[in-house]
């Protein structure tokens, strides 16, 4: 079972009863049509044609190797981003505030950046209801000096939750712990590197922007490959 988004917050949801603060930039029906047609194009054209091309017409999704998982990752993006976009458009049409769920995730240059662009509504939900309260709890309990430890433990809990959100299984627990370790290591390396002068040079930033998305794609595909058997069980 994959629990799908977008996940809406209660305080955002009840805003549907309030009058909008600012008038929409473009006519609302144009935005509705644009979102719904883009969603259909993603889901029924890009995702389905990619699936037919790679796995064969009418064949079930499967992964026999890393490359299959890489294609599956791209397929999942177009499928999931597609129906999230349709939900967004329908939400606009019916006056139900629906959060944006994807924001060009393959352009992310780091894993932390990736998860602010992929399934954003779940990321915001976990950050708001689990990560930040836990982090505050640990800081209050252990003091500001040990805030880094509290932050790491809160990150671990948040990622275990995200892993088990997909399916309650051992592999998704390993996935959650692995992602927590990766995101924490990335932050540690970046914080250390940023103290060096070479890391702040323009050329380093340009190289990081080019190589970052490749690194994210490879790491994410590898992590999905770990749980791919669980997805199709």
């Amino acid at each position, binding site marked *: 079972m994959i629990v799908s988004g977008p996940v809406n917050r209660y305080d955002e949801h009840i805003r549907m009863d309030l009058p909008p603060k600012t008038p929409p930039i473009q006519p609302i029906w*144009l935005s509705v049509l644009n979102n719904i*047609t883009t969603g259909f194009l993603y889901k029924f054209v890009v995702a389905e044609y990619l699936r037919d091309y790679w796995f064969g017409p009418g064949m079930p999704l499967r992964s026999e190797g890393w490359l299959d998982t890489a294609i599956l990752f791209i397929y999942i993006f177009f499928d999931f981003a597609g129906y999230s976009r349709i939900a967004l458009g329908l939400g606009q049409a019916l006056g139900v505030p629906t959060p944006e769920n994807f924001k060009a995730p393959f352009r992310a240059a780091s894993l932390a950046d990736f998860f602010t662009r992929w399934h954003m509504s779940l990321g915001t939900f976990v950050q708001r209801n689990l990560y930040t309260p836990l982090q505050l709890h640990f800081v209050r309990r252990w003091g500001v000096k040990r805030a880094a430890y509290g932050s790491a433990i809160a990150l671990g809990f948040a990622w275990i939750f995200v892993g088990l959100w997909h399916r309650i299984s051992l592999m998704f627990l390993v996935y959650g712990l692995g992602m927590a370790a990766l995101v924490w290591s990335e932050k540690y390396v970046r914080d250390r590197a940023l103290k060096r002068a070479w890391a702040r040079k323009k050329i380093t930033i340009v190289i990081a922007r080019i190589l970052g998305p490749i690194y994210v794609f490879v790491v994410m595909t590898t992590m999905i490959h770990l749980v791919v058997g669980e997805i199709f069980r």
Partner: protein
Amino acid sequence: MKPSFRRECLICLWISLKIVVLILLVRIRSTEFVYQGF
């Protein structure tokens, strides 16, 4: 981004193009096989 007539026309054109592609592909696919879902 400021609302403009030109921008709205471009969005309309883009929406129309997507609808045409969807209709054409649905017609082609309906003769090939039935969609089985994720």
